[in-house]
């Protein structure tokens, strides 16, 4: 195993650690003989012996053949051929990536501070970490970072656009221009001179690196992207996958040896939690940074479970890649009830408190010991305290499960980060701590999905069902406690509750959270008190509430916004900006009465944007609509706007796959000839115009989404001068939904 270390003196070392990975297999005696003979013919040294190992949750051990392969490079091809040759044998430990196995085995993790005994020929005799992955106060090694990005910042350079290459080093920016040979030569020079540890790029995976490598190859020029010159650059093809009812496109990957390459535009972890968060995840999950940046968070949590299994000597079963089959709606109704949602009471409310259970699902798993092997164990069948509410399952009271054992330190570390955050006044330190805690939050968030997921190593549907059953019971308990204290439940989603009680302040909500925490055993915190919050109705049916769609202003003035255009990636910038400006204006209101007084100002903002649109000032950036392709572009049967734009790109030879995001502008949305309706942004030249009316419709919808519960109608938006009055329809002044506290002039009933 090649290991790169950064010495205290600043030198970089490539060392070799003689690591001997093992795998296990179980088979009947006759088959075992055949396998043994097969192994004797292998080209590298292999040790074999029969050992006793446990499967997860098994009461009796299994006799398995332990196979130790003395050449790590041979491990993957050899095990692959073995599985092909003997498909009837049961395999264990065969498909865990070797760097991860190495980290588990040596008790190391990425970027750990460590100490090694090294021979003169750079071989590791012993290596040990000088810190724990659970430390919160760690320092990072002084990494040299080189940044690469395309000169212009197109939405996606693969869809068009070209320019120079920007290189940033120690805060200095260089622009590499000229012909291809110049660019390759100068980049090679910079790489060899500065020898960066980390190459941080924009679009490096799908665009920059593949192109640079191809150019260098074509021109027969050296380009030292790898520090380890003997090894090839790792690459992976682009692909699409289906996740949480969305098609996601994954760009290819270019991974380097002896140097890290991270692509800001192809990394969920980097985008969500920054470099500090990515490093945090890599450290606790024990997955090397380049993999962690490009993989799903689920791989991180899986790795942590695998480590627990390895340390316990539990066998890790080999899983073929088989995605979960689609279930019928009826099957889902019975097995997959999920969390509880109370649809919001539509309208604007004052002095509302939001209470959130922190990491509810993982906390349930830890507190109630929910794990695949602890659910419906044999020993606790008749134990009343082991019962899961609502459903017939129970969990073990005697042995702590693998999943709770993996999650407990994670929950604890996140809680410590949150305490440190609360205690520090240094803004930069706080930001880093926040990135780290949110990186852990992501690991915790996905941990639940891996309890009942067929692809998960240690998943079991009963464990998944038990967690949601507990969560429903606990949310109801919280609601009951609140209602007993005189609070009204306005809205609740799985682990969050929005409550209101006339006269209740911060201290009251804190006290309520305290009682709920004590009674349920799960920590719940006050997320904040809203001066006012509006739960917004469905666009399709204005009487129908929609969960998780609201705008609210906290006591400290910050806003929380969910579900409206501003938060949607497919809304054009101009619509988002108009909505944001409107909300900034409304956000000045401290009470519902003040809010209502600000409506005319908000309407004026909408009108200003409308004039701007009509007068033709809007730019491409303001108008571009980003849409993700939900299927392969060839598979579309209707002429939707995004499909027309996709066709335009395909016609120009740009490869597209399901899950890719394309950007287009509405040119004439109602045109009879489909290609006239939209234009792809990447293909725009000098002559183009936009469909002001179509954008106006989007603008109007965005405004009404927020204003309609306040009584504003389409008419109010259309008329340019008329001041807005309260609606004078025949409705009674009583409003059971929203504005309860609000005083409206009473009219006689005629």
């Amino acid at each position, binding site marked *: 195993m090649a290991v790169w270390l950064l010495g205290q003196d600043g030198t970089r070392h490539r060392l070799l650690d003689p690591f001997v990975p093992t795998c296990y297999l179980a088979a009947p005696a006759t088959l075992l003989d055949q396998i043994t003979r097969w192994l004797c013919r292998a080209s590298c040294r292999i040790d074999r012996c029969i050992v006793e190992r446990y499967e997860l949750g098994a009461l009796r051990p299994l006799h398995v053949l332990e196979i130790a392969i003395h050449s790590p490079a041979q491990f993957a091809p050899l095990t692959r051929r073995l599985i092909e040759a003997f498909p009837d044998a049961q395999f264990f430990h065969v498909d865990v990536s070797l760097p991860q196995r190495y980290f588990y085995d040596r008790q190391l993790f990425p970027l750990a501070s460590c100490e090694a005994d090294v021979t003169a020929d750079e071989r590791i005799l012993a290596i040990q970490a000088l810190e724990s992955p659970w430390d919160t106060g760690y320092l990072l090694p002084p990494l040299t970072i080189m940044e690469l990005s395309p000169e212009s910042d197109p939405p996606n350079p693969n869809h068009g656009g070209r320019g120079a290459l920007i290189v940033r080093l120690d805060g200095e920016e260089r622009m590499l221009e000229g012909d291809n040979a110049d660019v390759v030569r100068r980049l090679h020079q910079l790489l060899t001179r500065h020898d960066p540890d980390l190459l941080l790029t924009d679009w490096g995976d799908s665009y920059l690196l593949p192109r640079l490598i191809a150019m260098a190859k074509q021109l027969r020029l050296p380009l030292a992207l790898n520090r380890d010159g003997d090894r090839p650059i790792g690459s992976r093809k682009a692909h699409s996958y289906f996740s949480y009812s969305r098609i996601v496109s994954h760009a290819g990957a270019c991974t380097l040896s002896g140097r890290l390459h991270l692509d800001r535009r192809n990394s969920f972890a980097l985008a969500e939690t920054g470099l500090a968060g990515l490093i945090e995840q890599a450290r606790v999950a024990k997955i090397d940074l380049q993999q962690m940046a490009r993989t799903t968070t689920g791989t991180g949590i899986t790795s942590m479970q695998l480590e627990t299994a390895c340390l316990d000597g539990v066998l890790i079963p080999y899983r073929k890649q088989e995605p979960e089959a689609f279930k019928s709606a009826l099957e889902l109704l019975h097995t997959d009830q999920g969390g509880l949602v109370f649809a919001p009471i539509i309208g604007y409310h004052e002095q509302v408190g939001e209470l959130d259970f922190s990491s509810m699902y993982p906390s349930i798993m830890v507190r109630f010991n929910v794990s695949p092997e602890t659910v419906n164990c044999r020993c606790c069948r008749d134990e009343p305290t082991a019962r899961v509410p609502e459903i017939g399952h129970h969990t073990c009271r005697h042995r702590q499960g693998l999943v709770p054992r993996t999650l407990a330190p994670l929950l604890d570390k996140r809680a410590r980060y949150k305490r440190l955050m609360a205690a520090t006044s240094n803004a930069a330190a706080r930001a880093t701590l926040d990135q780290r805690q949110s990186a852990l939050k992501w690991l915790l968030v996905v941990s639940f999905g891996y309890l009942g997921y067929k692809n998960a190593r240690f998943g079991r549907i009963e464990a998944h069902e038990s967690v949601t059953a507990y969560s429903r019971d606990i949310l109801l308990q919280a609601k009951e406690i609140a209602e007993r204290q005189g609070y*009204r439940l306005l809205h609740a989603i799985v682990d969050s509750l929005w409550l209101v009680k006339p006269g209740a302040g911060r201290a009251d909500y804190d006290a309520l959270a305290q009682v709920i925490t004590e009674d349920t055993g799960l920590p719940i915190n006050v997320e904040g008190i809203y001066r006012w919050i509006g739960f917004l109705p469905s666009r399709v049916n204005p009487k129908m509430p929609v969960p998780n769609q609201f705008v609210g202003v906290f006591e400290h003035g910050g806003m929380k916004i969910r579900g409206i255009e501003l938060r949607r990636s497919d809304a054009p910038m101009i619509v988002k900006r108009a909505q944001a400006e409107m909300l900034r204006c409304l956000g000045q209101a401290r009470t519902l009465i003040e809010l209502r007084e600000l409506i005319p100002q908000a309407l004026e903002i909408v009108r200003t944007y409308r004039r701007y649109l009509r007068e033709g000032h809007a730019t491409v950036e303001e108008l571009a609509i980003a849409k993700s392709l939900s299927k392969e572009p060839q598979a579309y049967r209707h002429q939707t706007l995004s499909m027309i734009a996709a066709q335009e790109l395909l016609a120009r030879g740009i490869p597209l796959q399901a899950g890719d995001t394309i950007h287009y502008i509405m040119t004439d949305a109602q045109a009879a000839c489909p290609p006239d309706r939209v234009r792809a942004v990447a293909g725009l030249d000098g002559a183009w115009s936009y469909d002001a009316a179509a954008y106006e419709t989007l603008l109007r919808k965005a405004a009404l989404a927020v204003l309609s519960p306040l009584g504003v109608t389409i008419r109010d938006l259309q008329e340019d001068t008329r001041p807005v009055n309260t609606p004078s329809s025949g409705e009674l002044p009583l409003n059971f939904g929203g504005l309860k506290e609000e005083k409206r002039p009473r009219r006689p009933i005629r």
Partner: protein
Amino acid sequence: MGRTLATFTQLVQQEIDSWSRYRRALRLEDQQALDALFAAARHQATAGAYLARETPFEVMLLSMLIEQHKDVMTLQQKVTILEARLLDNQTPGVAS
């Protein structure tokens, strides 16, 4: 003297029990409304017992409707009286 059949009041109680999970997942104000409905079903216990239908929930629903209808009628009457009173009080030249 033991009874073989459950009384109608007992049937209502059984019905209430069978809805307990539904009731638990309602907001407090909606729980109160649900309780009022089942209380209304009990009002017609005599008629329900006399009919002795196989599907008592139908009888309960109709009993709830009867009470609802009576409430609506009462409210309608009150509104008519109040409207008449308002019109009487309105003299020309005085704003409402």
